[in-house]
């Protein structure tokens, strides 16, 4: 239970948002050249960090826009919110 400061709408309750999971997982540029191990890595393997994790969120009951969040998963504290396409902050 925490608040998220949507970069487009401002601070709202977390229940208005949905988590899109780990951020910065690049879509393969040449999908036909990937072997099974690389596909498994892209599709299924996750860092699942206890600590600061970079993740995507969607303001699904608001502006419906996607953005990135750097959040400490051990206490749900949000360290930084930044827009899609931006590089993850150094924390």
């Amino acid at each position: 239970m925490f608040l998220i400061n949507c970069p487009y709408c401002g601070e709202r309750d977390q229940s208005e948002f949905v988590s899109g999971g780990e951020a910065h997982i690049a879509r393969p540029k040449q999908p036909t050249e990937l072997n099974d191990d690389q596909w498994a890595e892209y599709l299924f393997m996750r860092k699942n960090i206890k600590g600061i994790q970079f993740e995507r969120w969607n303001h699904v009951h608001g502006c419906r826009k996607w953005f990135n969040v750097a959040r400490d998963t051990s206490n749900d504290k949000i360290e930084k919110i930044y827009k899609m396409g931006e590089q993850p902050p150094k924390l």
Partner: protein
Amino acid sequence: MKNKYSIFSLIKNAFSNHENWQRAWRDPEPKKEYDAVIVGGGGHGLATAYYLAKKHNLRNIAVVEKGWIGGGNTGRNTTIIRSNYLWDASAGLYDHALKIWEGLSQELNYNVMFSQRGVMNLAHNLQDVRDLKRRTHANRLNGIDAVWLETDEVKKFCPIINTSQDIRYPVLGGTLQKRAGTARHDAVAWGYARGADEMGVDIIQNCEVKGIKRSGDTVEGLETTKGFIKTKKIGVVAAGHSSVIANMAGLKLPLESKPLQALVSEPVKPIIDTVVMSNAVHAYVSQSDKGELVIGAGTDSYVSYTQKGSFNIVEETLKAILELYPIFSRMKMLRQWGGIVDICPDASPIISKTSIKGLYFNCGWGTGGFKATPGSGDLFAHTIANDEPHKLNAAFNINRFVSGDLVDEHGAAAVAH
């Protein structure tokens, strides 16, 4: 040799005001070296140690636990036990566990209060009806007891359910597994701990793993808060923290750890004598022997290790509970808590060797691991002892995410994960 628990030992100890019971397990310091070390002293980890000692005669082994045994998800779940899974591999796995549950109290000489009160799964729309009927047929082909109940039969089996067709999600029928039920979660951990300890297994509490030492692709031991422990085999059963341990060995797992909540009400007289689960509205309820309603809610959408969960999840579950059971509308909820569940993309567990020799993982049980505790321990012990999976857990290897041979129980099992 420990004293056997029986009606006679109970009477005998009553005369001394229950002050002379023996300790159920020792509190040893870790030795320098073990043949195998289990990381995680929950039900699954303790069961693994128990079967390693009992069936595979590995006695120089230890269980290391960062807190106290049974203090994680073993003590946080809603204690539901069932085996009515859709796919053959899952049916084999969970029914293996259910068969062990049926004789577990006698085997452990510890009352795990296994109660086969039945588990009923409700259907609320036409697709639910089709899915649940299909699952009933699949269960019966696998030799698992399952029956389809029409709405009036649901009402007869559990009279307090609101079967009015005017509610938002009307009850259109349900399935019933009569062999399913509940057990006392703490007793399962304590019973396995006592049994394992009696065979010489060291159960080391307040001992957190800080690192895994490797030489090339082989494990050499564990760095812990109680010093270095040398071992050739490490079995990790760390539930929500599996990825944290995997990271220490340089491995990545297909897991996401999320809070799953449950809550209990004030205790009342017996009102519901079965377990009722509802997939579409995500609400399940049973009644404990103390009289509390035990209510399970859903998971949060985000990764978190906080063991809390959000209020809106509880709110949604209680809305559904009140629509299905108007009789509970004035009950007060006493406690609410969260456990961190490690969820696989296909909502099936991993009981597997890894690319590192001597490192084994038993994880990914997600929202439904308690029911599998005895079977999981038995099969994981087999995998560790033989360095090969048992045929019942062969499908639950970690390579299925590479081969694509997933065991997709997402929504196909009795409850949405």
